[in-house]
C-alpha cells in the first residue's frame, strides 16, 4: 500500500513550551484514522501542523514529497479540511460557500473543467444532503446544517486526504452519525484517506482502522482500536473511571465513561457477591467504585455479570456454561466465602446449577449476609425460597427490600 502521509520528528512549540513533541507516524492510502485524546492534548495543533498552517520543525511528507514543496493551490487539491461550523461575518448563500471548495481548480478554464466544477459541487451537495439548502443564507442555518455545508465545501475540493476537526460536536446523534457514515462511505468507496479528530470515543472505535492516541502533545499509542482502547491508556489520560467492553451488537470495542477519578481510600471490607443474569452489574460497579474489595461467583461463563467483572478486573469465580459446578470451582468459592466480611445475595433467580451457591452458604453459620428481596426467584421447586427463609431469621443476616437499603446495610456493617 502507498503511504500518503509520512511524519517524522514533528515538533511545535510556542514561547519555548512544547505543544507537539516528537511525533512520528505513517498513514496509508485509504485508511480511516481517528485522533483522540483529552482536551489540550494538541490534537487541533497537530492537524494545523500536518496541513502546514503552523511553523513546525521536522518533516511532513505528502505523497512522497515534503508538504512545503507544494503551492497552496496544489496542496488544496490533495488535502481538504472540515472545520467545526462557524458563523461568517457576512451572509453568503449556501451554494456560494460550497462552490468555494472548487477554488483550487479556478485557473482551469476549459469546458471540461467547468463541467467538472459543476458536477463535483452538485455531488457534494447531494452527498451531504444540502442540495435543498442551496439558496438559503448560510448564517440563518442551524448548527447541524452549517456543519453539513462546511463538509460539502470540503468534499467539493475532491481531495485524496480529508481532515476533520471534531466536526460532530455541535450535532445531535442523528446528524452526528449521518456525517460520520458519509465520511466512512467516502473512505470505503472512493479510498479517500480520512484523518479525524474524534470527540466521541465510541464513534472513533467503531469506524476507525487505526487510532492515534495523543496526550500531552505526544503519541501514547498508534494502533487498531482493539489495541489502543484499554483501561490503562484511557483512564490515565482522561483521569476518570471507565468501562471497556465488546459491543456485540455493532461489533466494536465500547467505552462507557463512569465517573471522574475520586480520591477515596481503598476500603478493606471484603464483599463477595452471589449474582448472575445481570442482577449484579449495577451493584458490582457501585461497590467497585466505592473501592470495596469485591469478588463474585459462582456464575456461568457468558453471563453479563461475568463480562462486567472482567472489564473492571474483578475476581470472578465462573463455571463453563450450562454445566454442573466442578470441585475446583467449589473449592475456590468456599475459600472466598471464608475470606469475605460480607456475602451479598442479589435478586438473582436460582435453578438447578446455581442453587449450589446457596446450599454451600447455608453452612457458614456466623457469616454476615445481606439478601436483596425478590419474590419470584425460585426455579427449583421451593428449595431456594426455603434456604432464603432459613437465612432470613438468623441474627447476622439482613434483608434489604431495595437497593437503597442494601447499600445502607453495607455501610453499617463493620
Amino acid at each position, binding site marked *: 500500500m502507498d503511504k500518503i502521509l509520512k511524519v517524522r520528528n514533528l515538533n511545535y512549540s510556542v514561547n519555548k513550551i512544547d505543544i507537539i513533541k516528537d511525533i512520528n507516524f505513517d498513514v496509508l492510502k485509504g485508511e480511516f484514522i481517528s485522533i483522540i485524546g483529552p482536551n489540550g492534548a494538541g490534537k487541533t495543533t497537530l492537524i*494545523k501542523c500536518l496541513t502546514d*498552517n503552523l511553523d513546525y520543525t521536522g518533516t511532513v511528507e505528502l505523497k512522497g514529497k515534503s508538504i512545503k514543496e507544494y503551492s497552496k493551490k496544489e496542496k*488544496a487539491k490533495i488535502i481538504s*479540511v472540515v472545520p467545526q461550523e462557524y458563523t461568517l461575518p457576512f*451572509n453568503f448563500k449556501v451554494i456560494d460557500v460550497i462552490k*468555494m471548495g472548487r*477554488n483550487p481548480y479556478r485557473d482551469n478554464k476549459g469546458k471540461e473543467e467547468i463541467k467538472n466544477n459543476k458536477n463535483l459541487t452538485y455531488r457534494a451537495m447531494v452527498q451531504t444532503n444540502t442540495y435543498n439548502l442551496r439558496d438559503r443564507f448560510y448564517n440563518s442555518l442551524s448548527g447541524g446544517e452549517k456543519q453539513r455545508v462546511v463538509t460539502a465545501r470540503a468534499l467539493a475540493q475532491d481531495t485524496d486526504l480529508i481532515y476533520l476537526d471534531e466536526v460532530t460536536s455541535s450535532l445531535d446523534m442523528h446528524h452526528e452519525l449521518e456525517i460520520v457514515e458519509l465520511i466512512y462511505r467516502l473512505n470505503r468507496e472512493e479510498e479517500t484517506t480520512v484523518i479525524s479528530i474524534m470527540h466521541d470515543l465510541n464513534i472513533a472505535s467503531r469506524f476507525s482502522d487505526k487510532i492515534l492516541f495523543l496526550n500531552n502533545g505526544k503519541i501514547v499509542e498508534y494502533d487498531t482500536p482493539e489495541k489502543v482502547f484499554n483501561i490503562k491508556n484511557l483512564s490515565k489520560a482522561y483521569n476518570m473511571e471507565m468501562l471497556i467492553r465488546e459491543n456485540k451488537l455493532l461489533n466494536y470495542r465500547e467505552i462507557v465513561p463512569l465517573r471522574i477519578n475520586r480520591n477515596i481510600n481503598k476500603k478493606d471490607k471484603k464483599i463477595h457477591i452471589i449474582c448472575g443474569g445481570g442482577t449484579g452489574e449495577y451493584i458490582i460497579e457501585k461497590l467497585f467504585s466505592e473501592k470495596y474489595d469485591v469478588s463474585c461467583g459462582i456464575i456461568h461463563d457468558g453471563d453479563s455479570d461475568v463480562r462486567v467483572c472482567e472489564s473492571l478486573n474483578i475476581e470472578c469465580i465462573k463455571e463453563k456454561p450450562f454445566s454442573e459446578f466442578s470441585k475446583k470451582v467449589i473449592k475456590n468459592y468456599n475459600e472466598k466465602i471464608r475470606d469475605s466480611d460480607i456475602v451479598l445475595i442479589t435478586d438473582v433467580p436460582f435453578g438447578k446449577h446455581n442453587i449450589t451457591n446457596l446450599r454451600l452458604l447455608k453452612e457458614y453459620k456466623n457469616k454476615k449476609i445481606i439478601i436483596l428481596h425478590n419474590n419470584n426467584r425460585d426455579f427449583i421447586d421451593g428449595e431456594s425460597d426455603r434456604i432464603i427463609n432459613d437465612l432470613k431469621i438468623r441474627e447476622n443476616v439482613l434483608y434489604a427490600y431495595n437497593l437503597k437499603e442494601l447499600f445502607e446495610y453495607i455501610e453499617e456493617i463493620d
Partner: protein
Amino acid sequence: MKKNKLSLIILGVFIVSIIFLSLSLGAVKVNVKDIINIIYAKTLGTETTYSNLDSSIVYIIWNIRLPRIIVSLFIGGMLSIAGVTYQGILKNPMADPFVLGISSGAALGATIGIISKISFNILGLNFISLMAFAGALLVIFVVYNIARIKNEVPVTTLLLSGIAMSQFLTAILSILMMLNDRDLNKIFFWTMGSLSGKGWESIANIIPYTVLGFIILMYYSKDMDILLLGDESAKNLGVEADKIKKIILVTASILTAASVSVSGIIGFVGLIVPHIVRIFVGPKHSKLLPLSFITGGALMVVCDTIARSIIPQEIPVGIITAILGAPFFIYILKKKKAEVF
C-alpha cells in the same frame, strides 16, 4: 441573468440623470439641452455649436461643474471600494477606510502642510495634498507593524492599534489647530472634506490610482470572498492568505490616501455604501466592488451637489454625507438586517 441586466440598465440611467441634474443645478441654473450641446461640442463637435451661449456658462459647465462631478464620482467610488476591502479583510462590518487611523494621519499631514506655508507642486499635487498622502500611508504602515505578530496580523490588534493611533493623532491635530487659529477655517474645511475648485488636473491626479486599485481588487475578488471564511479556511482552500491580504490592504490604503489628498476627509461613504450594496447583491466581491464604486460615486455626486447649491455658502461635503447617509443607512439596516448579518 435577465433581472441583472435590467437592474444594470436602471442603474445606468439613474447615474446619468444624477450627473445631468448635478450639472444643471447650482448658483447658475443651466438647462439640459444646453448642457448636452456643450458636452457634445467639447468632445466631438466644433465650438460653433454653442456660439449662441454665454461663454461664462460654457466655462461653468465644462471647466467647473463637469470635472468636479467626475472627481466626486471617483472619490465616492474609491472610498467605497476601500470600505468594501477593509470590511472584508478585517471581517468587521464596522471597518471603514478611516478606522485604521488613516484619516487622522492624512489630516495631521495636511494640517502640517497648511501651517508650514510651503508651496510647490509635484505631478500636479500641491504640498498639502502630498503631506496628506504621506501622512495616511505612514500611519497605515505604523499601525500594521504595531499589530503584526510574526507573519500574522490579528484583526483585533489591528483595529485597536488603529483606534489608539487615531486618537493620538487627533489630539496632536487639536493642539496644532489651537496654536494656529489663523488657519483654523482652512484646516476645518479640510478635515470635513470638500470638492470645491477641483478641475481636470485633479482627475488626472487620481485616475491612475483609481484604475489600478480597482483592477487589483477585482483581480483578487474571489480570494476576498474566501478570506471571509477565515485565514485558515482560506489557506486550506488554496488561497495565499498572508500575501493577498497584504496586497489588498496596501491597495485599499493607497486608494484612501489618494482620495483624501484630493478632497480631504469625507467620512461615512466608505462605511455605508458597502453595506447598502451588500443588502441588494450579497457579499460576493465580484459584484460588490463595481456596484459599490458606482453607488458610492453617485452618492458623492448627490451630496456634493447639495453641498454647493443648497445655501449661498458652500458646506463641507463630509457634513452632507453624514447628515443624509446616517438616517438612510439606519432605515435600511432596520428593514433588511436579517439577510445581511
